């Protein structure tokens, strides 16, 4: 693996880390969602700089060209980050649904309270 690839990969990792840091600092990214990204940046940086570790890893999984291993590791991390976000989106949309339903039900109740001539009157003259 050439020195140039190492430098480029390390530089890219550093830029990623800097961007994440800035996003957290300016409160556009919550720490809990940044942790996976930070981990991604750190791992890529470490493997880019520490070429022995990358070579060992590449050899262990049967990749002949170590920079490809770096690519694989980065892809794996990005995959994890995306999956994590999918779960976050699912949870948010679930909560969004529940909130919309709650809001609609409360609005309906408020309306019945403020204009008893509407639906609720029918209910009471039956009982």
């Amino acid at each position: 693996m050439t020195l140039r690839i190492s430098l480029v990969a390390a530089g890219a990792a550093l830029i990623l880390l800097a961007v994440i840091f800035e996003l957290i600092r300016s409160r556009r990214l919550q720490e809990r969602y940044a942790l996976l990204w930070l981990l991604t940046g750190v791992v890529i940086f470490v493997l880019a700089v520490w070429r022995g570790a990358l070579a060992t890893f590449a050899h262990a999984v049967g990749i002949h060209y170590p920079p490809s291993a770096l690519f694989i590791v980065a892809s794996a991390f990005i995959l994890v980050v995306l999956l994590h976000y999918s779960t976050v989106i699912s949870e948010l949309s679930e909560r969004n649904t529940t909130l919309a339903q709650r809001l609609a039900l409360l609005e309906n109740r408020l309306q019945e309270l403020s204009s008893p001539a509407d639906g609720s009157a029918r209910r009471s003259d039956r009982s």
Partner: protein
Amino acid sequence: MATRSETLQAAPAPDRRRRLRTVAIVPALNEAEQIAKVITELRDAEPEVEVVVVDDGSTDTTAAEARRAGAHVIRLPFNLGIGGAVQTGFKYALEHGFEIAFQLDADGQHDPRELDALIAPVVRGEADIVIGSRFLGLGQYAVPRGRRLAMAVFARVVSIIVRQPLSDTSSSFRAMNRRALRLFAHEYPHGYLETVEATVMASKYGLRLKEVPVLMRQRMFGRSSLTIPLAGFYAFKVVVAMFISLFRRTDYHLEEKP
């Protein structure tokens, strides 16, 4: 009035049925043209049933029309899809202490005169959920071939999963008791064809299902909102959801706390 007494005779326990507070849940999306007619028909057939229209973010005057026709209207702030809309109705029914809830479409497909047939097994305590089936001999219900095939496949697969023959799992003409309401208020599938998933879910939770033959009309108004690619997407989604539901934990307690 004559038709009403006839249908009541058909129901096994008219006196008991009369006392049970019943609500009809009608999810509606841009149905302003006919919603009033559907509600009026429903109230004429079953004057004691309260009607709740869940307006799923309509951009027309659906809510106003429904209110004018004498329904309670719950307006969702934005479109949730049929699953989320119906579930809002279930929550309403549960919170307002209704003992029986119906679900029926706003497009006039479901004939309110069939409600007594639908409700009877729930009243008798034989089932928690009763599904009105188009395919049990009553009437001829024309369905395009592709859709009919999909329906048949769903019916077959669901029948195997729930170990009970069901013929019309995508029917959204249903009646249920509070046990079922409690489950569905807690958890209900999203999106289209949600009734197929809901059937499997209910069975997994040990709810008793029953199908009764009903006469369904061709939709009185409008067209199916389903396009072919969309139908394919939902069919696929339902298959995946059914498969996964086989492995879901079902640890939600359905019994009402005293």
